[in-house]
């Protein structure tokens, strides 16, 4: 191919031209503080300017949006961007260095640890929330379910509402003979992961589907996209049952079943019950914990989960470090946590909150 040399030059030239054009007008690194960076280490948050990029969990998305909005009045020069792409993608972005912080509903799995290349990460929990087992049974508002029954329902071992398993824990409730319609997620999700983790922890080997962001549901299940999709399915189908996060259930007007916790009590989902669940968990020094099926508090709601913002302990430059400290401090501080209740999330228990605040100083550059 005698044209090879010329072909090479022409096409490389074209590609380089395009790249140069863009590079000239873009800042050179992903997490840059493009405008004149503050040099005084004692600069207050109000005088700081720069950009922070975060990505990950959709569970955190509404909170992040509210926090970003509120943070503008605290530090008007700082632009924070958060994209709810999913915990897996958020973590992947963190490993690749394209974001400053990753929102994740679960800790970094063992299979991903090699991606860190030995760098240390810090976990900052930011919120707690319950997962509703929402149902659509006209006239019935106080359904009780135990983990074993939930496990059987979601594996399609129990297929009608008036099955003896359900009846025995709901004495006096007039359960219809409607078939149970399962509403599940078609997209992968941290909600699925934590819901299945709860079932795995609570019933052990009776739950055969494993725990992951995607699970092989029975073929009779309706799959819908997003918490909103599942909520719509439940709302429009009599006899439907599914798992949605509490904020979605509240926004859609769905009722969640009262689930039996570790202490044997049937607790309805609420932010108070979620806080009770979180208050009793064992927190490791690196601030990782899991709130599902953990607390023995009788008022705890057992299907409660959490979300972290994960950052590298050592930041590439001082500006990034200070911007992150300020923003994360805002999220876990009083101003940020106050945003949670109206959004139907539960704030962090005070012990976790103080541990997180203390951990802020570990962000260095």
């Amino acid at each position: 191919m005698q044209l090879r040399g010329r072909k090479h030059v022409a096409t490389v030239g074209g590609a380089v031209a395009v790249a140069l054009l863009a590079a000239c007008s873009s800042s050179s690194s992903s997490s840059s503080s493009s405008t004149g960076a503050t040099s005084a280490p004692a600069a207050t948050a109000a005088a700081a300017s720069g950009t922070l990029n975060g990505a990950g969990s959709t569970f955190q998305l509404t909170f992040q949006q509210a926090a970003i909005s509120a943070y503008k009045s605290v530090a008007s020069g700082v632009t924070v961007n958060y994209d709810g792409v999913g915990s897996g993608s958020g973590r992947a972005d963190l490993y690749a260095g394209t974001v400053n912080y990753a929102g994740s509903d679960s800790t970094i799995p063992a299979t991903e640890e090699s991606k860190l290349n030995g760098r240390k990460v810090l976990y900052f929990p930011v919120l707690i929330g319950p997962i509703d087992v929402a149902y659509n049974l006209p006239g019935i508002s106080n359904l009780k379910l135990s983990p074993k029954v939930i496990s059987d329902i979601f594996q399609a071992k129990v297929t009608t509402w008036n099955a003896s398993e359900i009846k025995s824990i709901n004495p006096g409730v007039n359960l219809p003979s409607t078939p149970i319609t399962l509403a599940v997620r078609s997209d992968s999700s941290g909600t699925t992961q934590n819901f299945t983790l709860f079932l795995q922890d609570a019933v052990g080997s009776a739950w055969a589907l494993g725990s992951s962001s995607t699970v092989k549901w029975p073929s009779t299940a309706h799959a819908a996209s997003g918490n909103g999709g599942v909520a719509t399915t439940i709302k429009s189908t009599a006899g439907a049952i599914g798992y949605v996060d509490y904020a979605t259930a509240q926004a859609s007007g769905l009722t969640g079943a009262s689930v039996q916790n570790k202490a044997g009590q049937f607790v309805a989902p609420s932010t108070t019950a979620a806080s009770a669940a979180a208050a009793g968990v064992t927190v490791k020094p690196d601030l990782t914990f899991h709130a599902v099926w953990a607390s023995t508090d009788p008022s705890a709601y057992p299907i409660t989960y959490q979300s972290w913002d994960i950052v590298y302990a050592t930041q590439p430059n001082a500006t990034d470090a200070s911007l992150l400290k300020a923003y994360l401090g805002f999220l876990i501080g009083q101003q940020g946590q106050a945003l949670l209740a109206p959004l139907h999330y539960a704030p962090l228990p005070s012990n976790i909150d103080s541990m997180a605040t203390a951990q802020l100083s570990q962000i260095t550059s």
Partner: protein
Amino acid sequence: MMAIASEQQTVDLREPGGWRRTKNQIATVGMWVAFVVMLIPLGFVLFTVIAKGASAISWQFLTGNIPINVLPVTFGGVGPAVYGTLVITGFASLMAIPLGVLGGIYINEYGGNQVLARVINFFADVMTGVPSIIMGLFIFTIWVLHFGYSGFAGSLALACLMLPIVIRSTYEMLRLVPDSLREASYALGATKARVTLTVVLPAAIGGIVSGALLAVARAAGETAPLVFTILVTQTLNKNLFSGANTALSTLIFQNATQPYTGAQARAWGSALTLIAIAFILMIVARLITARFARYDR
């Protein structure tokens, strides 16, 4: 022959008889049915989008800042997303359309029967089948990892999506321009470039422009490539080349599966806006074609 002709009954050549006429009528009806059948889903979708989205549209909606999900649609709007869509898609078109037309010209005018031209032609087909999400992942790996998230990365992904469509439609159109036009021009001593640019291209311009516009319309509505390249954000970013951005398509996708009525209303309003923008572009371009195309069909 004459004997056979005289043996036949006198046939009225204006009206084909019996079965032939019926076949013709069935065919004509079939074509109309095809059109009407396509109208039904279109009508349904437009009805749904207008019914759900029209109430949200207002000047404030089109220019206001994006509020948090939970707020009703009367707060803020989708201004940053409108800006993002126009700028990102516009820049992508700027890159993809000229390159696509040139590529189509290469395959048809300069390529002839050479292996290289046939290979490029074949792979342009293959490239139209690459899922949009793969284009997004590709630009993420090649560009975002080195230069960060930006609207420009989104433009690159969309341009990759548009390029093979423009090449293919240019190729198909140029291919059908009669050789006699080219030969006549060569006979007058014009160089190949001149012939292509001033004779062949204008002859095919109608089809080329419509192919390019279909590509633009598709790119404007694409979600997956942008998800991996622009780091969808809430704030307005006027700089295409630096920093996260947003677009109507990603906003629709993110919001429509949310439970909050405000978020859903914003999604449907954005869908209506997007359809309107793309449709206006289409009409403008069709009018330009009608006015400036040298050869009328």
